[in-house]
């Protein structure tokens, strides 16, 4: 494809989803500066692999690139339990009491923010894609590359955690 046309097409189909991209990056990195870097990086990556874009939903396609970019970066930094994330181990019963007590102190109904931010990366990702981007289970499963069943169980656990976090803040 002619490079100028390729750029124009990219700007037309992918650039409009900038807010969604930034929002996801912001929630995954939990800070504005890294979120900006990640978004910019993800856009470059997306543009380079634009040939794999088959005219499906530009937003879901872009979000998959954003999340991969963020996960790669987080993994490199090594401060996130990304690789060996165990669904069972991260069940509600196993929460670290320390994190919990911090959450109880911090959280109030008005500071739902902290409760979401305190979620493990995969839970946070599922919640953001589902509740903020309002994507379907199937779309989330494609973006995060896990089965739909896993998406559903992550969402259920994430909600339960949020509920507990908020309850703790209110008690």
């Amino acid at each position, binding site marked *: 494809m002619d*490079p*100028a046309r*390729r*750029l124009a097409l*990219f*700007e037309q189909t992918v*650039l409009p989803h*900038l*807010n969604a*991209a*930034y*929002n996801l990056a*912001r*929630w995954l990195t939990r800070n*504005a500066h890294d*979120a*900006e870097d990640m*978004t*910019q990086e993800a*856009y*470059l990556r997306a*543009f*380079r692999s634009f040939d794999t874009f088959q005219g499906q939903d530009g937003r879901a396609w872009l979000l998959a690139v954003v999340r991969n970019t963020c996960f790669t970066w987080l993994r490199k930094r090594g401060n996130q339990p990304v690789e060996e994330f165990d669904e069972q181990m991260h069940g509600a019963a196993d929460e670290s009491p320390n994190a919990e007590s911090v959450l109880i102190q911090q959280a109030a*109904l*008005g500071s*739902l*923010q902290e409760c*979401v931010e305190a979620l493990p990366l995969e839970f946070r990702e599922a*919640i*953001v894609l*589902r*509740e*903020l981007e309002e994507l379907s289970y199937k779309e989330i499963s494609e973006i995060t590359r896990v089965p739909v069943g896993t998406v559903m169980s992550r969402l259920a656990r994430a*909600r*339960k955690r*949020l*509920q507990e976090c*908020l*309850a703790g803040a*209110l008690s």
Partner: protein
Amino acid sequence: MNCETAQRLMATNDPALAQHLLSCPSCITRTHARYYEAPPELEQKIRRSLSNEASSQHGSQWRWLAIAASLLLAASVAWNVAMLRSRVDPERLLAGNVLSAHVRSLAGTHLLDVPSSDQHTVKPWFDGKIDFAPDVKALEGFPLLGGRLEYIEGHPAAALIYGRDKHTINLFTWPSAASAADASQTLNGYHLLSWSGNGMTFWAVSDLNETELRQFVSLYRQK
């Protein structure tokens, strides 16, 4: 409870009512988790980096095209040169073959098939071995050493061997329809003189100096 109700109740800041909201964490998230909007300058940054990327891809495309074009050009030049050489050079190729025959004859032990200084011995020796009769001559100052059968460019040739001091001269001759102009060349320090006449081609090769070799040739041609 739908999300609007949840939102309204949360605004009251009543813990008891808020407690009730916990039945719908999904609603709370939707209404209260922040949706971060991209900072206004981010779009410009991204547009800039995309257009840089696009122009570098564009540039690299041209670069590749340029490389491909120059490779093509080089290949075609090389091919043309090769063609030109092969077109110009049947003569040079022949000279190479003649010289090889000369060097081979000196390097091995097979300089002479018929060692004789007598032209009347050498000439008949070829009879029956090749379908032409080479002109074997006795030349003043260039003693005949003998004859040898050669094979040059797929054709039998007669090699007449003459001496001059410690130098050896191979005079190759074979029939050829085409008549070539007199020519001389020097290859690897050897001198080669060629001419044609009476339906025969002649090549005289030696490490002898050119003047004496020319002398030899003119003597041979005079007789």
